[in-house]
């Protein structure tokens, strides 16, 4: 298909030399999309195919094929390839949005059923899977304490490592550390749980506790904190450091009084995101905190619960009451994590460093 065969666009001043070649009218993609949807709906009603997922997929494939064929005929192969890629990207986006939105919609609609004051002020004490009632009070206490303890340990440690990598780290050892930060980033969360189980609970014999859970969360938080702080420290202009040195300020004071404060908003954002991530971790907590139905506000002794753990244990029950509790707890957890994210975003937005 050559692009320069059609000889005449008549309107003056518009592409008189036909540089653009023939193009599909603007309404063509819409029309083809509508046609594909209609055709797949027809298939849905006429043939025994009865899965919504299939129909959506079929409409997408039909649209992709028809668009490419029509465009190849009218516009030539280069444009057709462009259309193909555009269609692919759009459909990929739409296909991905459907399940992701479906997750949020199900959590909100199914979670709202038990999402009341009672749910937040009661524990599961004496409530079996078949019983109505019960709540997440004990789980919220557990989550908050475990995440706070983990942050208290992971943030200073991670920040120090980041400072070392950015300000001091040269040569082999910093490269090795940087590599293992990446390894830790890819560490499956259940391995962190197994490690604390093997080390703290079994080898040292401390038993299950909220603190053991926060130790596992520390392992997961450290790489996130290191990476985000590292990126932020790197963004601090060198002139600031040099100004410090030029004034005779020692390096450590320059770092602590000039570099870190300059990067602080970004670091806070990274920390908040790390907190949001570990707040939703289930596997490491499952292995180290053990879970309980009772309120235990002491993270250093005895089993605790936590929100993700609560969701997991309720979702595993076949009774509808338990499943309802799981959805409501999932809604609560998502809201907490979204709030943490929003706060982090606001922080990042207000003091953007660049």
């Amino acid at each position: 298909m050559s692009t320069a065969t059609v000889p005449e666009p008549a309107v003056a001043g518009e592409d008189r030399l036909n540089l653009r070649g023939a193009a599909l009218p603007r309404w063509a993609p819409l029309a083809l999309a509508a046609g594909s949807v209609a055709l797949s709906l027809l298939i849905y009603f006429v043939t025994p195919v009865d899965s919504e997922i299939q129909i959506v997929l079929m409409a997408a494939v039909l649209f992709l094929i028809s668009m490419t064929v029509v465009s190849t005929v009218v516009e030539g192969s280069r444009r057709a390839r462009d259309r193909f890629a555009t269609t692919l990207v759009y459909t990929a986006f739409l296909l991905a949005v459907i399940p992701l939105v479906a997750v949020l919609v199900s959590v909100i609609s199914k979670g709202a059923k038990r999402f009341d004051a009672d749910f937040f002020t009661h524990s599961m004490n004496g409530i079996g899977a078949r019983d109505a009632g019960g709540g997440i009070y004990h789980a919220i206490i557990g989550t908050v304490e475990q995440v706070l303890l983990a942050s208290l340990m992971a943030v200073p440690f991670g920040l120090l490592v980041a400072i070392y990598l950015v300000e001091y780290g040269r040569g082999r050892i910093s490269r090795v550390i940087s590599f293992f930060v990446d390894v830790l980033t890819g560490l499956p969360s259940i391995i962190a749980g197994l490690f604390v189980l093997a080390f703290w609970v079994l080898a040292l014999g401390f038993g299950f506790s909220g603190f053991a859970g926060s130790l596992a969360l520390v392992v997961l938080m450290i790489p996130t904190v290191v990476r985000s702080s590292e990126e932020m420290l790197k963004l601090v202009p060198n002139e600031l450091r040099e100004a410090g040195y030029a004034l005779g300020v020692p390096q450590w004071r320059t770092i602590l009084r000039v570099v870190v404060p300059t990067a602080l908003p970004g670091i806070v954002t990274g920390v908040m995101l790390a907190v949001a991530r570990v707040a939703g971790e289930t596997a490491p907590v499952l292995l180290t905190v053990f879970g309980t139905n009772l309120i235990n506000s002491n993270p250093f002794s005895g089993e605790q619960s936590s929100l993700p753990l609560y969701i997991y244990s309720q979702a595993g029950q076949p009774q509808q009451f338990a499943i309802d509790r799981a959805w409501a707890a999932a809604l609560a957890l998502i809201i907490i994590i979204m709030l943490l994210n929003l706060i982090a975003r606001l922080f990042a937005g207000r003091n953007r460093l660049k």
Partner: protein
Amino acid sequence: MTTEPDSSADDAEPRGVASATDPAPAPLATTTSKARVGIADLIFKNLTRTAGIGLLVLIAAIAAFLVLRATDALSANTGNFFGTQEWFPNQTPPKFGVAATLFGTVVTAFIAMVLAVPVSVGIALFITVYAPRQLASVLGYIVDLLAAVPSVVYGLWGLIVLAPHMKGTQLWLNDVLGWIPLFDADSVGRSFFVAGVVLAIMILPIVAALSREVFLQVPNAHREAALALGATRWEMIRTAVLPYGRPGVISASMLGLGRAMGETIAVALVLPASFKISAHWLEPAGNTIAANVANGWGEANDIGRGALIASGLVLFVVTMVVNIIARAIIARRRDFSGSSA
């Protein structure tokens, strides 16, 4: 401390996604005065260095303790740890192996990657190249939020909402593609395929969010140059955006792969936990290492826990190997990407 003049070579080392594509990291201040370094400086420097070394100790401790707890169970094992498909570590004599669970881990992660990576790249391209600017920032924000949704929520959704809905699709796959052994099934249900789809949905926003950041860093000059030469939008993507973003996309995918292989709760809720190497991916069967740990550790005795820890060690090694390969790819690609403009 003396400064090494050629130390900037170290900065060529990729550090995470964002900087992996950073064309030329600014050389950092390394110039401490050669004359005299104060005591406080030494203390602070060594404090940070200790933290760095502490991180290495942490990794070593993870490996060491996993090995330590695993050895007892492994020496009591009457099966072949890598060959046996059964998992009976709690009976005497214990007999267990990771063959079936390792297989399940690889298969579900594979399905998830095949489904999620192309779609994630599509999302990232849509947000960075196709969408109007206003919409793009909102969408980017939404993808970031979705990346933060905890996996247990995806697991809950996969178990209660998705698994029943997947029945028709699985039957259809079986009808149409049943002549391929993978899609041949006597019955369909909570299968590898469903678990893979849940994992794919779960890692989608993560890979998309990271790829988006990488594509955002493509210099406008590259994109405009391609368009000025008459490239269509797709040609611009192929010649300017993708080559520049490739290392970042690879490392994002590897992070996603790590998540998919290590994902515990979602898979534990979806798969029926049977220990069987099955080439029929639509049949309700299978288990993964991580899900097996979550399901099995409650009733495990001493040997049982050791066995679970041993299987965790295998997962640890596999994810580490994946990470190392990814880093090697990124390092090699960087040399050829020509993005040092």
